[in-house]
């Protein structure tokens, strides 16, 4: 019956009454991801999703679905009618390939017998297959603890044989936990923050603040590039770009220099909140982290936080820089993030920024600004782009 891709999802199966909803979402995402590969059959069976490969495109299918949130692991299996001789043949084949390609010396066979009508039990099947393999190959031994290759045999309404398990990212299917607005800068942190929230099933849109002409078009291009990488995980999503410079200019003119950064950040949060609400997002996501820079002390985070009503998710809050970098490398945003274009405007960087701002003082400074007008003008000039997955 050919090659079939087995997709396993862990956490979803704990969802009790809502399980159907989660499974259907995941099924939908898998279907979309492989839809242009000749529309292979995708279906749900015994708490797993199966994708039937066509003409040897199973590796391509795995590559497509590997990044889908909610998937725990994937295997490429041979599926065929239950028959002990055929099982032997496929098991032998798996081991033969492993010996040739990876110089495999030890093996283990693991049988899962779901069809209890099958005359032998799992242990008997293991024993018979093991004996057969030892007969067939000279330089190979059984190792039940740490084998070079583990061949799994499943006996259900049909038989499955496979030996590899490719791990996914786990989490929950996108769209099962609403939508949030990610504040996406050009740095290392924010794409990672967005990804981590996405992993919990939250779809995102992104908002980017720039200070053109104090920052360049190339810096903006870099953010679009990051958004494209994120779209490998999120599919199509919307990127909103806003020029913060007019606001920064006014802050610079009217407020104490050392409060520049914190005031600008509060404006970003307020604008992001408005755009979020307009777009049906129920939370903001930032790449903030305790103590990474002056604007990320507990006091500063408090002052920034109180600018908005909706919840602000900060998935990186306790992470070390190296942990964030490792994640950025894993999801492939790192190389783009470290390109040397300025993101937020360093011209206005205060010489000695306040690190322990007091909310009452900040609010007093904001009184010096025509906040409503500034925010409205910024909102009027939003540039919207839909980010597509234009590469795999």
């Amino acid at each position, binding site marked *: 019956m050919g090659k079939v891709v087995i997709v396993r999802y862990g956490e979803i199966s704990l969802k009790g009454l809502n399980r159907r909803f989660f499974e259907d979402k995941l099924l939908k995402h898998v279907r979309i991801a492989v839809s242009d590969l000749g529309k292979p059959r995708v279906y749900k069976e015994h708490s797993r999703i199966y994708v039937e490969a066509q003409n040897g495109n199973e590796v391509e299918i795995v590559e497509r679905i590997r990044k889908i949130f909610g998937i725990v692991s994937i295997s490429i299996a041979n599926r065929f009618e239950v028959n002990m001789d055929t099982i032997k043949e496929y098991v032998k084949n798996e081991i033969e390939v492993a010996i040739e390609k990876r110089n495999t010396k030890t093996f283990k066979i693991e049988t899962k017998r779901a069809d209890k009508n099958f005359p032998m039990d799992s242990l008997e099947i293991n024993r018979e297959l093991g004996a057969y393999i030892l007969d067939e190959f000279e330089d190979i031994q059984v190792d039940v603890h740490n084998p070079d290759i583990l061949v799994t045999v499943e006996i259900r309404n049909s038989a499955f044989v496979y030996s590899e398990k490719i791990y996914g990212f786990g989490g929950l299917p996108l769209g099962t936990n609403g939508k949030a607005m990610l504040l996406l800068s050009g740095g290392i942190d924010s794409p990672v923050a967005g990804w981590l929230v996405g992993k919990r099933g939250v779809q995102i849109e992104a908002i980017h603040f720039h200070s*053109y*002409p*104090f*920052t*360049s*078009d*190339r810096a903006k291009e870099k953010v679009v590039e990051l958004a494209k990488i994120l779209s490998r995980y999120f599919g199509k999503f919307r990127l909103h770009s806003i020029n913060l410079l007019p606001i920064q*200019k006014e802050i*610079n*003119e009217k407020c104490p*220099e050392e409060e520049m950064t914190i005031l600008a950040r509060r404006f970003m949060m307020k604008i992001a909140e408005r755009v979020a609400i307009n777009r049906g997002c129920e939370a903001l996501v930032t790449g903030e982290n305790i103590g990474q820079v002056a604007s990320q002390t507990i006091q500063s985070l408090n002052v920034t936080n109180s600018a908005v009503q909706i919840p602000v998710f900060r998935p990186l809050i306790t992470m070390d820089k190296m942990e964030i970098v490792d994640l950025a490398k894993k999801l492939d945003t790192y190389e783009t993030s470290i390109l*040397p274009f300025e993101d937020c405007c360093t*011209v206005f960087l205060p010489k000695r920024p306040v690190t322990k701002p007091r909310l009452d003082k900040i609010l007093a400074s904001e009184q010096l600004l025509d906040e409503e007008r500034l925010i409205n003008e910024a909102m009027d000039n939003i540039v919207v782009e839909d980010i597509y997955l234009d590469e795999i």
Partner: protein
Amino acid sequence: MEVYLDNAATTRPKDEVIEAISWALKNLYANPSSLHRKGLEVEKEIKECRKVVARALGCSDKEVVFTSGGTESNSLAINGLIMANRRSGNHIITTKTEHKSVLNTFEHLSSNGFEVTYLDVDREGFISLERLKESMRPDTLLVSIMHANNETGTIQPIMEIGEIIKKINRNTLFHVDGIQGFGKIKFNVKQANVDTYALSGHKIHGPKGIGALYIKSGVKIQPNLLGGSQENNLRAGTENVPGIVGLAKAASLISEENIEYMRGLKAYLVKSLHECIDDIHFNNGINDNFTPHIINVSFKGIRSEIMLHSLEQDGVYVSSGSACTSRKKDFSHVLKAMGLKEDIIDSAIRISISYTNTREEIDYAVDKINKHLNDLRKIIKR
């Protein structure tokens, strides 16, 4: 209005050049190495082009090798001369303000055991001839000095330098990176003691990806690229025929008249800037010791990139430092070598004109510079 003032980075190809290239693409498609008539036709055309470029350099057509551009010309000259004349010594000399294509080649040679002297420059970017004399040794194999600097337009006295070198050690070879000088300075390679001279197509309204190297007849040089016997065995690879045709067309448009026009326009630009802008700092001069197409100016307190992006909004295109390095965050090595202060380097803008620019364009650009400078200085007042 669009005012393109980044001509030291690249010039816009002239219409005549584009027509010539498109004619070549359409008609000269055969391989010049092919034995048939169609190949011969192309070979003949290349020969004509070589004559045109030779005329612009003031040499014989046998002394011109076509390359893929300035970087390759510099590389072929420096590496080729050194490899073919290894026995003349182990010491090589260059300046601190060379283009990266020369500096990085020298750094590579230095890490391969060659002894390198990097000549300092003064406040205006000139090397000291005395210092050059002192640096010359019996084992000096090669001296490489650029004709005109790409960031400041500083013209080194190549005639005198050539004389000094050959007088002290007639075995020492002399390479000149003429990429910014060619077409901007009246110069004849034959009259100077120059062994090799590099030039590039896209700096003179020709196409990118084509350049040439003058190699004095009798000078021994080793090819960089091995392969076929094209370009007199010095540069293997099927000739870039449309490029060569475009380069020749562009070279034929070089004229003293155009050079004089640029000189006048530059003087006008400098005067206009002086008249309307306070606290302006010229990093190069306007006399004949500088090319007629580059001015390098600092508007103190305004980082050059901000000025650059402000001007682009009005269609005025300039450069910060040199185009090749402006994307890196590090400072211009040229301005640094000239001993300029950090805030001057940080705010340096290179405005480079061409004979295709007009006074109206200059007026527009100066007006915009003035406008943005006033705005920006208001913002960054503290």
